[in-house]
C-alpha cells in the first residue's frame, strides 16, 4: 500500500502552513520528517491521517491503512497495561497482543495500572499500540519523546521489523534513530502567509482577502 501525496496544502486554523507537498511513501520505506517547531509537521501528519481536510491537493491512501501515533498516547490511567492494549487490539479486530508486548518489553508491566507507569513506560505502551492496529502505514509524531536509549533501540527495531514486513513509516523526529531512511525537510514547503490575489493557489478564504484588498 503506497501513500502518495500530490500538491498538498495543509492548514491550521484556516491558514495554510505547508503547501505544494509532493512525495510518495512506498512499502518498505521509512521517511523522516524534519523541520523546526511549529513548522506544521503535526498538522501534516493529522491531515494525512484524515483527521482534518487538506486545503488543496490529494492524499491517495485508504485511511483504513493508516495509523497515527500522536503526542498523546490515548491511555486510560485506571486501566492496566494489558487492558489498554487489548482495547486497541479489539477495536482493530486483532486478538493477539503478544508481539506488541514483547516488542516493547512490556511483559513485566502487564498487570500494572497505567497511572503507575513512568513517562517512558507510557510511551512504550503508546508505541506498542501501533503493532496491534495491524495497519501498514505508520504516521508518528515525535515517537521517542521521554524514551531512554534502550527504549529508542526497541522502537527502532520495531520500525525495522515493520518495514521489513512490507510496512512503511513517516516519522517526525529530531533524533537519529539509526534507521535506513530518507529525509523530508518541510522547510522549503513553508506556506507564504503573505500571498495576495493573483496566485495560483486559492484557499477557502481567498474570497475574503479579495474583498478587502
Amino acid at each position: 500500500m503506497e501513500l502518495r501525496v500530490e500538491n498538498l496544502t495543509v492548514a491550521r486554523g484556516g491558514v495554510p502552513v505547508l503547501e505544494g507537498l509532493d512525495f510518495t511513501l512506498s512499502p518498505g520505506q521509512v521517511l523522516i520528517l524534519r523541520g523546526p517547531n511549529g513548522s506544521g509537521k503535526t498538522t501534516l501528519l493529522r491531515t494525512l491521517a484524515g483527521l482534518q481536510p487538506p486545503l488543496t491537493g490529494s492524499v491517495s491512501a485508504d485511511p483504513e491503512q493508516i495509523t497515527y501515533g500522536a503526542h498523546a498516547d490515548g491511555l486510560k490511567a485506571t486501566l492496566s497495561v494489558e487492558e489498554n492494549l487489548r482495547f486497541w487490539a479489539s477495536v482493530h479486530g486483532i486478538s493477539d497482543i503478544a508481539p506488541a508486548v514483547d516488542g516493547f518489553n512490556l511483559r513485566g508491566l502487564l498487570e500494572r495500572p497505567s497511572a503507575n507507569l513512568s513517562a517512558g513506560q507510557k510511551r512504550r505502551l503508546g508505541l506498542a499500540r501501533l503493532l496491534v492496529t495491524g495497519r501498514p502505514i505508520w504516521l508518528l509524531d515525535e515517537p521517542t519523546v521521554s524514551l531512554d536509549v534502550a527504549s529508542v533501540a526497541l522502537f527502532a527495531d520495531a520500525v525495522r521489523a515493520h518495514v521489513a514486513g512490507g510496512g512503511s513509516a513517516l516519522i517526525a523526529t529530531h533524533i537519529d534513530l539509526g534507521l535506513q531512511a530518507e529525509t523530508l525537510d518541510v522547510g522549503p514547503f513553508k506556506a507564504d502567509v503573505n500571498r495576495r490575489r493573483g496566485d495560483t493557489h486559492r484557499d477557502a478564504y481567498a474570497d475574503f482577502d479579495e474583498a478587502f484588498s
Partner: protein
Amino acid sequence: MSLWEFANPVKFMALSGKVLPWVIGLCAVTLVPGLIWGFFFTPEAAKFGNSVKIIYVHVPSAMMAINIWVMMLVTSLIWIVRRHHVSVRASKAAALIGVTMTVIALITGAIWGQPMWGTYWAWDPRLTSFLILFLFYLGYMALWAAIDNPDTAADLTSVLCIVGSVFAVLSRYAVNFWNQGLHQGATLSLDKEENIADVYFAPMLLCLTGFVLLFVALVLIRTRTELRLVRLHRLDVRERMKDA
C-alpha cells in the same frame, strides 16, 4: 448571474454598501410614520380599549422573533451545504436582533397581559414558546462567543441551529399539548383575525414593513461587521505566524 454570487464576500460588501442607505431610508419612512400613526391616531377597540395600541410593537416584534430564527436556520443550512461565508456570518449577525425582538415580544406581552388577563405571566402555550425560543437564542449566541476559531464556530453553531430548530418545533407541540393537559379550554392568547379591523390594519402594515426593513438594515450592517472581523482575525493569524 446567479443568486449565489451575492454569497461571495466581494460582491456582498460592494452591494450591501450600495443598498444600505436605501434600506435605512425606506425603514425610516415606514417605521416612523407607522409607529406615530399606531400610537396617536388609532381609536379604542371594543375589547381592548386603548391597550390595543400595544399591538403595534408587540405583533411586529413577535413575528420578527420567529422569522429571524427561520432565517438563521436557512443561512446555517446554506453554510453547511455550500460553505458560503457570508451566509453563516449573516446568521451570527441576526442572532442579537432576534433575541432583542424576542425580549420585546415577551415584555410587551407581559405588560399587556396584566390589564387583559390580570396576570403578567401565564404558562400559555404561546408565551411559553417564546420563552423557549429565547433560551435557544441564548444558547446559539453563547456557543458563538465560546469558540475562538471562526470556522469551527461557524460549523458548530450551524449544527446547533439545525438541531435546535427541530427541538424548538417539538417544544412548540409539547407546550401546546402540556398546557391543554393542565387547564382545559380557555386559551389566553389573542385572536388576531377578529381584532384587526381596517382602522388598525394600515398602521400595522406600515409597522410590520418598518420592522422588517429595520431588521434588514441592521443585519446588513452587522454582517459587514462580522466579515470585517473575519478578515481581522486572518490578518492577526498571519502576523502571529510571521513572528513564529
